[in-house]
């Protein structure tokens, strides 16, 4: 259809020339934040067919191209308005999808943390010629630490997604989760709360400093809270002889969690962030 064509541009979705109609449709679909590519393309196709009908009607009145475009735009209405109406229709699905994605992120991250810390502890046991089983005798307390690392990293990631333009706001979810975890740990494990809380701060700070362009600066993010906790509370885990291993474990965790997040963004979450 030559009616609304503009020269030289191509439509990204269907390989058709970009038209003013396509721009309107793309804007609606983009602003509506629809959950899922299938739904997006379905609605885009439906609205496009509608706009083509409007354009055909305009042509039947003998309007020239510009007058027709104006008529179509006027009759169709503001893309923002339509997008906002679609957004509220599909709000429950969008929320469900976000929650499922959050659950997937938390589960995957926790598994990654358990694997990393478990591996570091096992290697340490082998290197020091001690029983691997004996290094896991504090596993009950460590479970809180695994959860805290995941919570620290994921809460900051969630903050970045929710408030991509404001760093001050981006740390709010971490601060909130951190306060709740502090209360929970001090209630459940008052004698052993220091390490998981330090681990939480390490992970959150590690994620925060991963944004800094200078390579490996986030190492400091995992070291600083640990050093402070160490200075305040002394040996954090009974029988732990190598505090630098705790730092190493946390640092590798931050690196692995970054890879996990990037993997999920690329292959699982990409549809939602399109």
């Amino acid at each position, binding site marked *: 259809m030559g009616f609304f064509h503009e020269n030289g541009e191509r439509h990204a979705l269907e390989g058709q020339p970009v038209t003013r109609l396509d721009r309107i449709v793309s804007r609606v679909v983009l602003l509506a934040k629809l959950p899922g590519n299938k739904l997006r393309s*379905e*609605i885009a*196709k*439906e*609205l496009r*067919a*509608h706009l*083509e*009908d*409007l354009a055909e009607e305009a042509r039947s009145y003998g309007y020239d191209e510009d007058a027709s475009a104006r008529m179509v735009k006027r*009759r*169709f*209405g*503001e893309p923002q*308005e*339509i997008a*906002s*109406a*679609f957004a*509220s*229709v*599909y709000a429950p699905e969008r929320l469900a999808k976000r929650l499922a994605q959050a659950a997937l992120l938390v589960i995957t991250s926790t598994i990654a943390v358990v694997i990393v810390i478990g591996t570091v502890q096992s290697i340490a046991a082998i290197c020091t010629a001690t029983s691997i089983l004996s290094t896991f005798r504090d596993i009950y307390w460590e479970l809180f630490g695994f959860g805290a690392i995941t919570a620290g990293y994921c809460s900051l990631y969630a903050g970045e997604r929710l408030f991509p333009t404001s760093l001050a706001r981006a740390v709010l979810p971490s601060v909130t989760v951190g306060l709740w975890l502090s209360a929970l740990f001090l209630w459940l494990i008052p004698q052993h709360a220091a390490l998981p809380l330090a681990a939480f701060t390490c992970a959150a700070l590690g994620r925060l400093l991963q944004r800094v362009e200078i390579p490996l600066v986030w190492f400091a993010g995992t070291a600083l809270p640990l050093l402070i906790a160490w200075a305040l509370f002394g040996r954090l885990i009974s029988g732990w002889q190598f505090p630098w291993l705790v730092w190493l474990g946390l640092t590798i965790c931050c690196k692995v969690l970054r890879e996990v997040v990037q993997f999920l963004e690329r292959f699982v979450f990409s549809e939602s962030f399109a």
Partner: protein
Amino acid sequence: MPFDRELLKGSIALLILKLLSERDMYGYEIIQESLRRSQEAFEFKEGTLYPALHQLHKRGYLRSEWRTGENGKQRKYYGLTAAGRKAARASEKEWVFFTKMVNAMLSKANP
């Protein structure tokens, strides 16, 4: 006669269900048909019509399918499901009762 468009928004589900109870239609056709029947008083805006169609579809009142017309164009047709027919009858009854009550109130207010 000009009227508050919120009145139309509030009754859009009923009007859609009523129109589709007669035959399957696509969005543009629904707009044209409502214009024709209301003597151009009711013009559904796309921002109201399409989200309402999708909402009714989600509730299970509508089914939809893509059909190719005589001119080769594909259009998404909507039709009523059994639940939609039931909802259409219920909404119509409700509307008749409501307008009857409003008319009764107005006639007493202006004897």
